[in-house]
């Protein structure tokens, strides 16, 4: 019945840990709340605004494009791993892939998809 021993051990450890932390929290620690202490930790600098405001839709567009070009490189990794075996035909194929992808980027650029305003 090794599992029963483990279970009892876990129970004791959990009770001990919780007991110690709550004893410290309720009886030992000094409690002097201030407004500053209630704020979310923002790397040590004062907060500028709440975190639940709406983001501009432009962030979405940039994020969407990033994801798109990011994920398309999934085809690069197998090619890079097998670079030597694939040789020139592989280079040509990945070149075609990149040409189409680059065409997409050029289209995006030309149409003003990368402009902020």
């Amino acid at each position, binding site marked *: 019945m090794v599992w029963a021993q483990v279970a009892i051990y876990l129970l004791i450890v959990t009770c001990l840990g919780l007991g110690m932390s709550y004893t410290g929290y309720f009886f030992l620690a000094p409690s002097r709340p201030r407004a500053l202490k209630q704020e979310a930790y923002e790397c040590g600098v004062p907060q500028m605004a709440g975190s639940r405001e709406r983001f501009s839709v432009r962030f979405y567009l940039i994020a969407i494009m990033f994801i*798109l070009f990011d*994920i398309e490189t999934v085809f690069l990794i197998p090619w890079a791993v097998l670079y030597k075996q694939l040789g020139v035909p592989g280079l040509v194929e990945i070149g075609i892939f990149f040409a189409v992808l680059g065409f997409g980027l050029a289209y995006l650029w030309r149409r003003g998809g990368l402009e902020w305003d």
Partner: protein
Amino acid sequence: MDVRFYLSLAAVLFVTGVYGILTRRNAIGIMLSVELMANALNLNLVAFGRYGAGALGQVFAMFSIALTVTEVVVGLGIVVLLYRSRHDVMVNLASEMKR
């Protein structure tokens, strides 16, 4: 490890995704659910490939990842358009056409 563990996890993910699509009304939430379903089937493909069927499953999973992401990207683009035209992304409110 048994292939059944992966299949069970994939089944749970897939059903979660289906449930999400059927109950969510927020277009972004629906996209998230679609991604859950897509990840479930990618997991299935990779697991089948790893346990017996060969490397082709992983290859298919890569195509599937790339194309489902493209689908979600197009979807988010359309949702942005929807937001611009009605300042909301709730799909059930989008009922310009009669039932």
